[in-house]
């Protein structure tokens, strides 16, 4: 079996084919990507609010967080957070007098992707909130809306058209960043592909197959995100939306 062989039986979903293994890897990649993106969004909402309305110290600390995350390669952040995160949890368990636990790769992966994504979504959301014309918020106040009501009725919907392009980009980055978890041994799509390729020696075929899977995720995401963006932008004139 040479590296050029394109024995499609190897991609079969059932043993001895590796198709099922690849799809399972894809599922794990997507789980981490979804989890990490949502965690990042959560951090981003908190971070953006704190950067806009928080105290001085908090703002400076967040500035350090976003600068460091954006200035250090994701691969290195993932390694540091992976070890530090699992270490910290086990130290905590020790302090609480509980036996040490094995952190699941999934939880650790979601944590590291989330922390990395959080820095970027903080910036995206902060920019989007700042892009809302001040008059709209003043009008909400003039109507006597409480801060929470004006957040729900004005700030969030008015921010969406500015935030969605950035967030779409972050989602695409999240799906691709999961591949970096291969380096810490998390068996997502890229790592299982390498294992399948190494076992069968059909390198080209498996890497191309994984590439097709990633590309499908990207293209499908593009379609869905495009529809969401169009919906969020309804009612905006073209130059407002640009």
């Amino acid at each position, binding site marked *: 079996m*040479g*590296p*050029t062989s394109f024995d499609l039986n190897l991609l079969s979903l059932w043993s001895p084919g590796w198709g099922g293994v690849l799809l399972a890897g894809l599922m794990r990649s997507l789980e981490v990507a979804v989890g990490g993106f949502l965690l990042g969004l959560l951090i981003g909402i908190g971070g953006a*609010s704190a950067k*806009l*309305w928080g105290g*001085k*110290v908090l703002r*400076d*600390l967040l500035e350090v967080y976003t600068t*460091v995350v*954006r*200035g*250090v*390669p*994701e*691969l*290195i*952040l993932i*390694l*540091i957070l992976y*070890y*530090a995160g699992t*270490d910290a949890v086990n130290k905590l368990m020790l302090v609480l007098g509980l036996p040490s636990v094995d952190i699941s790769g999934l939880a650790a992966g979601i944590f590291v992707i989330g922390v990395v994504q959080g820095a970027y979504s903080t910036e995206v959301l902060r920019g989007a909130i700042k892009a809302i014309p*001040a008059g709209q*918020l*003043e009008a909400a*106040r003039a109507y006597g809306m409480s*801060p*929470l009501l*004006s*957040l729900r009725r004005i700030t969030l919907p008015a921010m969406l058209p500015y935030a969605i392009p950035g967030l779409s980009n972050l989602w*695409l980055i999240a799906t*691709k*960043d*999961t*591949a*970096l978890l*291969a*380096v810490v041994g998390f068996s997502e799509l*890229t790592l299982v*592909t*390498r294992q399948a*390729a*190494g076992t069968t*020696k059909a*390198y*080209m075929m498996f*890497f*191309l197959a*994984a*590439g097709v899977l*990633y*590309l499908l995720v*990207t*293209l499908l995401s593009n379609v869905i995100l495009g529809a969401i963006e169009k919906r969020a932008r309804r009612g905006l004139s073209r130059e407002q939306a640009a």
Partner: protein
Amino acid sequence: MKDEATLVPMTYAPPKARSLLEPHRIALAAVFLAILVSAAYFMRWDWLPRYQDRLISGLWTTMLMLISTSVVGFVFAVPLGLVQVTGPKPLAWLANAFCTLIRGTPLLLQLWLLYYGLGSLFAQYPEIRSSWAWPYLRQAWPYGFAALTISFAAYEGEVMRGAFSGVPKGELEAARAYGMGRWTAFRRIWFPRAVYRTLPTLTGETVLQLKSTPLVATVTVMDLYSVITKVRQDTLLTYEPLLLLALIYLCLTGILVLAFRLLENRIPSRGN
């Protein structure tokens, strides 16, 4: 949302001076300094002198990878962007498909496809094995270089497409009115104007490229990251080498950003 009042200022407030000497910043700096000093004091750094030479040569490899792939990638990005704007339909479609393909898959996968896939493919053919190129193709760095170059070309090609189509039509018409040929107009007007428009994003793309370089360590290129991996294996230290690595990359990012800002400031601008 704690206080909406700060969001909607009632009276004019002058913009706050951003100074490093505000009291809370001095306090924060002191805290960070304390952390830094205790890290230097309590953690183990005795391995540093032993690996000094290898670290420097690794840093050199990383820098070389960054600069060469960015420059070559940019050279490819210009035609990739240009044909998408003015090229014949099939070429434009091809360039677009290339950009989508590369931007839609992880760089690590592309790198492994080139190194393991193409690498083992090349090894099969005796003609390639006996050719002049084989001594190079047997090493890892050409694959790392190729993967990084292709990735930069695709991302920057997309940016160049936007930049070329964003140059105001009137400027190109003025060039035609002056009697410039297509090539002269491109060389004198279209290309410089487009590059100028991409400068701010070029900084970001180059930083992203810097942050992608450690991936080449996974195919045994001896860059900074793989030297650090070697340190970790030899000394069994988890954090110290990684923290040093993060610090070095942070400094490199800072230097890159500053260098681009200097470059941008040197170019005279009159609006955009």
